[in-house]
């Protein structure tokens, strides 16, 4: 191998390495961005759990309640409406 060939090979290797370094850098940056996004979504999801009103979202059993007494929760009346419909005759 001549000196020229050696230099040529060296330059080729250097170029290849440089390209690989560039690709690796871009890939690493994308991975970092993906991880950051995923971590942010996970943190927000966990933080939002106590803020979601499941009783309203999943179990809305009535449109509204009018009552002649104050201080009784609307849900109490919905419970009574459901309960007395399903009490078996032998239940006291």
């Amino acid at each position, binding site marked *: 191998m001549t000196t020229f060939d050696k230099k040529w090979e060296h330059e080729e290797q250097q170029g290849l390495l440089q390209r690989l370094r560039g690709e690796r850098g871009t890939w690493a940056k994308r991975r970092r961005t993906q991880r950051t996004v995923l971590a942010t979504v996970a943190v927000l999801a966990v933080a939002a759990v106590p803020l979601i009103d499941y009783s309203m979202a999943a179990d*809305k059993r*009535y*449109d509204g309640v*009018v009552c002649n007494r104050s201080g009784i929760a*609307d849900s109490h009346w919905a419970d*009574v409406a459901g309960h*007395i419909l399903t009490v078996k005759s032998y239940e*006291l």
Partner: protein
Amino acid sequence: MMLPLALAAGCSHRGEADAESALYKRFSALPETAVAQVCGFALCDTVSVDVVLLQAESDAAWEHLKEMLAVDDTTGVTSWLGDTEEPATRAKWDGQPKLRVVASHAKRAVGLYRLDDERQYDALLDYQMWKMERKEL
């Protein structure tokens, strides 16, 4: 002049969740009795009914309620299909609006479920059977 109850259905029938029905108004002044109107009580995903609930706050008030609605003096639960204008009057289903009246001695409570059509009547019976079947003895 008293407005016929059948013409004054209240709440969801007029698209207002908090409109007081004539039935609610009639009972809301009863002494020692908590009265509530639950609009659009869901029997299933697609069918709901309006309910007026009367809950006696004393023995005297419960006795008065029983007398007013001609509730059998038994334990457990009594129920019947009643006239919309006179819930104490027992009626048969004839396709016209009716009240399903359920009286619970244990809760000293009466529920008046307004049934405007057959779909609601079916859904109410389905609701009762479905829930009762799944109750533990």
